[in-house]
């Protein structure tokens, strides 16, 4: 099976290790991974701030970049939700504005083949045990778009539960938003920080060594707050946990993978 990795702009620039982890993981599971270089951003920052028209070229670009692939896999619940929920809206609005069906058709091609990573693993590959080893305590925060727009349900948890060595800690108030919300964090800094502070309190209260999500955008926000507070809780994308094996654990088996990008600046 051959898939295209849609790495997303945030992962490309700020968390490349997540993209590398997806490649490692999928190849370990026997999947051939392509990285179509014509891909860029899903357009969510623009669209969700109100710049729908500026988003349209990115819908077309997405369509062209992945034209040769039947499966597009992305390690981001939020970006997958952008494609699935908002690409069709962009297409419909363009058609309603009398600009033809071209964008709607591009959206219609993009939607059915785009999978968030855990959907691809559980629904398409049919695996929950991906052969991972991660000897740490982890708490899982279901990010909003994965939870409510995609309806990921228990897929991430089922994958985490099969990771050897991993101890999952319940996160109180898990389903509450962390306060990132894209430009919300900049436009409403006080509320965003208040929400983030409550999430950080919940995370540190679990005693977990790592905070795991399916979205690095939320992790940058919560992780940035954890780092600013000097917390030792490490933000880790689910893909990085699933990619880890006993070979990565090191002689002591204690090092938390994920430091390779020079972690958060303190």
């Amino acid at each position, binding site marked *: 099976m051959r898939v295209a990795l849609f*790495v997303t702009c945030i992962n*490309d*620039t*700020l*968390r*490349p*290790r997540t993209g*590398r982890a997806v490649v490692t993981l999928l190849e370990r599971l026997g999947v051939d991974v*392509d*990285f*179509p*270089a014509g*891909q*860029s951003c899903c*357009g969510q*920052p*623009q669209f*969700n*701030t*109100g*710049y729908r028209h500026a*988003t349209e*070229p990115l819908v077309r*670009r997405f369509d*062209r*970049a992945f*034209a040769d692939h039947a499966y597009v896999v992305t390690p981001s619940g939020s970006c997958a939700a952008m494609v699935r929920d*908002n690409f069709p809206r962009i297409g419909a609005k363009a058609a309603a504005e009398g600009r033809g069906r071209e964008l709607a058709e591009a959206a219609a091609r993009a939607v059915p083949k785009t999978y968030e990573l855990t959907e691809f693993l559980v629904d398409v590959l049919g695996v929950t045990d991906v052969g991972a080893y991660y000897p740490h305590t982890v708490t899982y925060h279901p990010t*909003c*778009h994965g939870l*409510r727009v995609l309806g990921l349900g228990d897929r991430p948890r089922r994958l985490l539960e099969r990771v050897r060595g991993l101890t999952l800690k319940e996160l109180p108030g898990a389903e*509450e*938003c962390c*306060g990132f*919300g*894209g*430009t*919300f*964090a*900049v*436009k*409403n*800094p*006080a*509320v965003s920080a*208040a*929400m*983030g*502070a409550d999430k950080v309190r919940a995370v540190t209260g679990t005693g977990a060594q790592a905070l795991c999500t399916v979205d690095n955008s939320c992790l*940058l926000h919560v*992780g*940035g*707050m954890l*780092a*600013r507070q000097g917390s030792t809780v490490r933000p880790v994308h689910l893909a990085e946990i699933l990619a880890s094996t006993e070979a990565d654990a090191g002689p002591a088996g204690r090092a938390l993978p994920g430091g390779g990008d*020079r*972690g*958060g*600046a*303190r």
Partner: protein
Amino acid sequence: MSRSFLGMPAFPRAAAVSTRDTRLRANLAHATHTIRDKRARAVAELDDWAQLRAAGAAIKDRTLRHLDHYLEQLEESVVAAGGRVHWAADADEANRIVARLVRETGEREVVKVKSMATQEIGLNEALADAGIRAYETDLAELIVQLGDDLPSHILVPAIHRNRAEIRDVFRREMGKWGRPAPEGLSDSPAELAEAARLHLREKFLTAKVGISGANFMVAESGTLVVVESEGNGRMCLTLPETLISVVGIEKTVPTWQDLEVFLQLLPRSSTAERMNPYTTTWTGTTDGDGPRTFHLVLLDNGRTDTLADTVGRQALRCIRCSACLNVCPVYERAGGHAYGSPYPGPIGAILTPQLRGVAGPLEQSLPYASSLCGACYEVCPVAIDIPEVLVHLRERVVEGGPVTRHGARVVLKPAKGHAAERAAMRAAAWAFDHPGALRGGMRLAARTRRLHPRRLPGPGRAWSDTRALPAVPAESFRDWWQRTRGGAAGPERGGRT
């Protein structure tokens, strides 16, 4: 209530203050979490909730798509049952009508059932200007009125007050409005409720004019429905000689049968009960039972402008249950007053800018008062996709475009103050559509990463004040792929590079 929402600051400014109010934060966290869990249990009792929700949305959509038909049918039914119907295009007109109707009775005092529509139009202030005193009789509205406060929640307008604060307001203010609070009043909710009972009973027994809103109006029968808990609604709807109901035109439902859906959806979403303690339905007037004169004031006040927007229209399905407020993480931390309107929370963030238009700074800020987490949509009993409408209204703010204001089609200019953001968004979109240029910028960022500051100046401070900045890695994913697997990916299919 002499205070009003006029001239409130934009949401982020108000929220910057309210989020630091630890008592407010504690009051709201306690109250919203209490009701949130109860609602979940009440909803889980019905295994057909999804079907009821779909039916509720569909009934409201059916009504809205043919609102002219249903309003005319409603008017005919109400008149046939002995009521009188008045139409008000805006708040001023509605206030003038009500003041005139009260004056015609010769009375100078009225008792009121909690009503969002009359809060929206500022009826109490307008009546005061006309020399008429309006007594709020809902317990929370009474707390707000006595405390010269503003409502901060649709269902529980005094949700921002805890029991000790309410006791203090009662002790201090009740005597100025009528029967004083009992000696030694404690802060137990039962004692506070008893104090309200004693204080208001005198008003109910003597009131000649009652003013209400309505939760539903049935077009085919002309029946109005008021859903309540305390019995103050029954007092106001049945004891006075004259009843004046001010109701938004979108409260119409086509048939009596349709109530079977809403009387299941509303109580469980609102107070998290199988059924609220009291529901009153009436059709015009009834000989020998209840008011002898019934006036219905049908209110537009921006609703038809909202109706004209095919995306924003769904906000008119709202049945004012307040479930979206109770689950909203932004509402919980910012509080209701930051929304600058009687309609706070997620529904307020889409209703206020549509009813009032997006010309003012507050109205322009409201669509952004959300992290788009989607919890509101999930609990909405009539499936209003609030995040969708929020984003739609953000577009109206930053891009402008055709809208309807006061019934006329106008083309809105993009809002001022977004020029830098607009330029940045367009530049980002351009860069993302030109990956060659983007890659150059990313490499530059990677090469200079040791020089990047730990905190940002200007607007970026909003991020870096509380969060560490993400470090830029030495190598982007793109470059890693090129370096390790270069050439294997084939040509770039995105078009330009």
